[in-house]
């Protein structure tokens, strides 16, 4: 947490696939770098982003807007192929390689920077109970909280995002 007169932002993180993990992690870390106090509330499928070992997968099925650059053009994956065994794993590897080549940070790297920047990482207690996660499954330095914990942060924040 930075100085008291700093601007503040809260983000509700509800999605934990590789592609959906980027917007909250990029905005959270960048805001912190610009002197903003940031709280991130990880709930439902966003909660696994706090697990010690990340193994994020791309949203391949039912995602017609995902167009991969290919042979000078762009190709999206028809659902019938995306549903085949190995399609998600294959597309995830392709995406991670492409990101590395283009100098895009990994989610692991952004998360490390978030911890370093003192971003408050709040794990939703209800989701922890629902999906039977324990604190041992999660990285160090997170806090536990519920809807009221989030609301307290949101009410005094300049920016509140739901992603």
């Amino acid at each position: 947490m930075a100085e008291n007169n700093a601007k503040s932002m809260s983000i509700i993180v509800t999605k934990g696939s590789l592609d959906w993990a980027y917007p909250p992690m990029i905005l959270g870390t960048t805001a912190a770098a610009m002197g903003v106090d940031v709280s991130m509330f990880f709930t439902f499928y966003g909660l696994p982003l706090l697990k010690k070992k990340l193994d994020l997968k791309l949203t391949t099925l039912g995602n017609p807007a995902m167009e991969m650059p290919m042979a000078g053009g762009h190709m999206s994956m028809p659902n019938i192929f995306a549903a085949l065994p190995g399609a998600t794993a294959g597309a995830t590897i392709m995406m991670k390689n492409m990101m590395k080549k283009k100098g895009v940070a990994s989610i692991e790297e952004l998360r490390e920077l978030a911890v370093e920047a003192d971003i408050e990482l709040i794990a939703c207690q209800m989701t922890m109970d629902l999906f039977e996660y324990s604190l041992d499954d999660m990285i160090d330095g997170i806090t536990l909280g519920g809807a009221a914990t989030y609301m307290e942060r949101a009410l005094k924040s300049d920016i509140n995002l739901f992603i």
Partner: protein
Amino acid sequence: MDANATLDAQGLNCPLPILKAKKELKALETGNVLEILATDPGSIADFEAFCRTTGNELLSSNEENGIYTFYIKKN
């Protein structure tokens, strides 16, 4: 221009040049100058916005052969 430190952010994409610059600036004394080399075209607008918001001073912003050079004075 003389800089107290240089950050080579070439090949890195948004938001890494900003995040790494912030870390470098943190280690510098007030009044010191950080030189940043980047290849991300988005970094022109982003370093301007970063400096306006954080109160650090963007002394210069140049492009040559696809390499962007920024000088930021820590305030």
